[in-house]
């Protein structure tokens, strides 16, 4: 009997142990639940949001750039892009392998995938292919169930209406991988030209969209969004038609065309030849192509208008002459004999015309571009004075045009010589300088600006985007300016002028000055044997052809310069091109 009782006790005890172990188990589960749901709520809440909420950065639409007559020259096009969920990025290469054959992944795309994978921006998507074609889009729509975690998005990307014509002045956009703004690693910023200069205006402000997605990567709905603010539109002073005319005229010719509105300094044309395709650059150019452009001996990436350095040649005589009559009270009627050369010490200085111009006055000297006359002027000139006066026409200074990377050229003086050549200034160098040769270097923009300032007597400043009306006076007497202008008139309109061939048809009158920028030094022996004709020279040694002009003569509106590299004298190539461009500008605008 006592055994029976003991057994009952034992059973009761064991039932109690069982119950206690259940209680223990319950508390274990309870504790873990308390930990998960109360203590770690915020952690798991965040994780659950990370699971479902995907943030997509919406890149702002870049502002449109218009020409003077409101024609868009840089706008945006729709670009379909393929992106992958960032947290599934380990699938990328697998997907690329499967999609190949239907979607073309170029080497460049693969490269950009590689770099995009390491981006740390805020977006939960990684772009793996841009510029999807319609066929590729169609294919993907059809197959997308097989590729979870990939989405197609529609972006607006920069598109230039013309591939080549505005490339230097507008510049292009691209990724700036150095920026610290890591949250927007896919933002394209202006790299050069107006795009760079006015980047902050054109850029706009990014927005975002929060998507709710399921575990299979399907977007269920948009949770909320912040709209991107598009960049501001910009109106420029460029005239599309003039710009493309310049491009046509310069086909096959290296050089630059610059046209400035004399009334407000607006840059109507800024064309550098050869050009490059800025659409290609903005879409991302391959390294191979980039190297090809860099190695191109004609340097298409150089904006010759503002960074191409040329001896201004005879066009600079305008400044020399003005300096003589304005500051040295030189008698413009004084005649000098041009016998084809003059001597200074034991050196001979040659006129471009071997047989000489005979007796000429200043007006004729400009009209015929007589070098000897200017050598004579130079004898009485102090280089530092000339240099100081030249700065009024922005030689040796940047013009302040509103695009980056402008060169200031060289306006030599005594100090410059010592600093750069460690030698004292020689009188003979003044002789070279007054005819725009020697050390002197200038940009096509500077030459055009000189003409504009002579034409108006005002300190015109070139601008691509602003519209300023008032400029200070140069403080040069009207009489002297009129003298120079009338000499320029003769250059084009007198049968003896160097640019008579390029006289405008119709009612408008143009005034200008030719120039020939010597690239090589002609040796004494060659002088004696007869100077080798330009056509017979190695291309790289041929002279640059320069012409600068303004029109209409009585009420200057446009100032224009054309530089054609290695094309010989200014009258032969540059002047006729300038004439045709000027005619178009005057007749149409």
């Amino acid at each position, binding site marked *: 009997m006592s055994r*029976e009782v003991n057994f009952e006790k034992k*059973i009761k005890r*064991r*039932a109690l142990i069982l119950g206690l172990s259940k209680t223990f188990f319950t508390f274990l*589960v309870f504790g873990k*639940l308390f930990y998960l*749901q109360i203590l770690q709520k915020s952690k798991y809440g965040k994780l659950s949001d990370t699971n*479902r909420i995907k943030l997509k950065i919406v890149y702002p639409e870049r502002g449109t750039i218009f020409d003077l007559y409101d024609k868009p020259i840089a706008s945006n096009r729709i670009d379909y892009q393929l992106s992958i969920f960032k947290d599934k990025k380990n699938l990328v290469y697998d997907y690329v392998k499967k999609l190949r054959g239907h979607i073309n992944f170029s080497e460049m795309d693969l490269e950009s995938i590689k770099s995009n994978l390491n981006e740390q921006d805020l977006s939960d998507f990684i772009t793996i292919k841009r510029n999807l074609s319609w066929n590729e889009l169609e294919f993907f729509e059809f197959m997308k169930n097989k590729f979870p975690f990939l989405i197609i998005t529609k972006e607006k990307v920069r598109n230039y209406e013309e591939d080549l014509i505005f490339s230097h002045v507008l510049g292009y956009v691209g990724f700036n991988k150095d920026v610290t703004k890591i949250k927007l690693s896919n933002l394209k910023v202006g790299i050069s030209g107006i795009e760079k200069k006015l980047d902050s205006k054109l850029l706009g402000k990014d927005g975002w969209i929060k998507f709710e997605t399921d575990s299979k990567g399907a977007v*269920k709905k948009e949770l909320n969004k912040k709209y991107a603010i598009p960049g501001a539109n910009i109106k420029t002073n460029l005239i599309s038609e003039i710009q493309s005319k310049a491009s046509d005229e310069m086909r096959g010719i290296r050089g630059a065309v610059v046209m400035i509105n004399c009334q407000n300094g607006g840059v109507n044309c800024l064309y550098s030849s050869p050009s490059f395709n800025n659409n290609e650059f903005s879409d991302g150019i391959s390294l191979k192509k980039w190297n090809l452009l860099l190695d191109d001996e004609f340097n298409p990436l150089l904006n010759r208008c503002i960074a191409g350095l040329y001896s201004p040649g005879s066009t600079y005589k305008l400044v020399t002459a003005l300096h003589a009559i304005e500051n040295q009270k030189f008698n413009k009627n004084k005649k000098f004999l041009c016998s084809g050369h003059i001597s200074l010490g034991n050196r001979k200085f040659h006129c471009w015309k071997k047989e000489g111009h005979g007796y000429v006055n200043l007006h004729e000297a400009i009209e015929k571009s007589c070098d000897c006359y200017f050598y004579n002027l130079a004898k009485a000139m102090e280089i530092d004075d000339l240099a100081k006066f030249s700065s009024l026409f922005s030689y040796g200074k940047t013009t302040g045009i509103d695009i980056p990377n402008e060169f200031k050229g060289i306006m030599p003086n005594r100090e410059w010589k010592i600093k750069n050549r460690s030698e004292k200034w020689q009188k003979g160098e003044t002789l070279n300088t007054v005819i725009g040769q020697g050390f002197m270097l200038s940009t096509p923009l500077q030459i055009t600006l000189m003409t504009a300032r002579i034409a108006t007597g005002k300190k015109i400043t070139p601008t691509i985007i602003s519209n300023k009306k008032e400029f200070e006076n140069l403080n040069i007497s009207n009489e002297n300016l009129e003298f120079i202008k009338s000499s320029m008139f003769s250059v084009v309109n007198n049968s003896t002028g160097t640019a008579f061939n390029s006289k405008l048809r119709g009612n408008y009158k143009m005034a200008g000055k030719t120039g020939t920028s010597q690239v090589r030094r002609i040796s004494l022996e060659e002088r004696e044997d007869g100077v080798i004709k330009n056509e017979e020279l190695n291309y790289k040694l041929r002279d640059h052809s320069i012409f600068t002009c303004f029109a209409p003569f009585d009420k200057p509106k446009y100032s224009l310069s054309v530089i054609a590299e290695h094309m010989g004298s200014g009258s032969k190539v540059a002047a006729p091109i300038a004439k045709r461009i000027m005619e178009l500008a005057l007749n149409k605008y």
Partner: protein
Amino acid sequence: MTEIIIKLKNLNWLFIFLISFLSFVGLVMIYSATFGEESKIFISHIYKVTIGFILMILVSLIDVEFWKKNAYLFYFIGLVLLLWVTFYGYLGKGARRWINFYGLNFQPSEIMKIFLIISLAKFFDEKKFQESRDYFFLILPILIVTIPFLLVLIQPDLGTAMLILFVSVVIFFVSGINWKFFAFSGLLSIIVTPYLWGGLKDYQKQRILTLFNPENDPLGSGYHIIQSQIAIGSGGTFGKGWTKGTQSHLDFLPEKHTDFIFSMLGEEFGFLGTLSVIGLICLITYITYHITNSFIHNNFNRIVGYGIITNFFFASLINMSMVIGILPIVGLPLPLVSYGGSSMLTYFIGFGIILSLDRGSNYL
């Protein structure tokens, strides 16, 4: 007839209410789990709950003596079904667990748990403690456990097999078997475990290994545990609201209407929800204890009561432990809440037996 009405009147209606409430939680959760998708599963679940409820009441009207008398017969039937399923069973999800019975899929391993419990109860009731000192008499009950355990294990259904083993050990324990037996078995199992481990399928090994470090392989087998913990944790105190769970409705949570239904409950009803369900389960367990403890000198009733409630309680808590990352994911439904016919019907039958025990108990 009047006899039946009296029997019905004597049923423990509080207990029935608690069971129904737990089933109701299941209905609510399965509605949410299938919300916005096909309603077939929800409707099928309603049918199963209804059938289960009726079955429970019917079983409660049967006297316990019936089960005692026919225990071995039922065990034999169960064994035949298990053997049959081993060879001819319907293959699903890589396991041979189901018998197709006139279009209804039926898992004999579930009902076998009940038959096993009553058979062991009958055995330990007849062989009283006197023989308990003689270990040879234990050979029979060990066989009673081992045969179905192995059959279920090779299906393979690790969850159910472990539960069978566990419940059996508990029954041995409350039958008053000497401590030494457990010590010996424990030692034996330590020796045998490596061999058993070698016999496990790769995916089962993986599941167990994953438990220890789910973050190691977040997209592989650890994915389920992590997503389940995220679901529960993100529910916080009050939950995201019924049918508003993002983890579950955006398919981050796997098997949300079966094994992981508790995670979904945690996500949508928060800590208060999970706590209430645990409370409910504890209350049901407590009441069953109360009923069972009232039997003195009746080993059969006692063992049946402890066995059935242990099965229910541990199945529930193991399921919860699985989805919150305390135990490996072995594939066990949450009793009465998860979708799944055979297991739910088995629990209803079990509770029917407890109700019938209650009718005969001194407990009021």
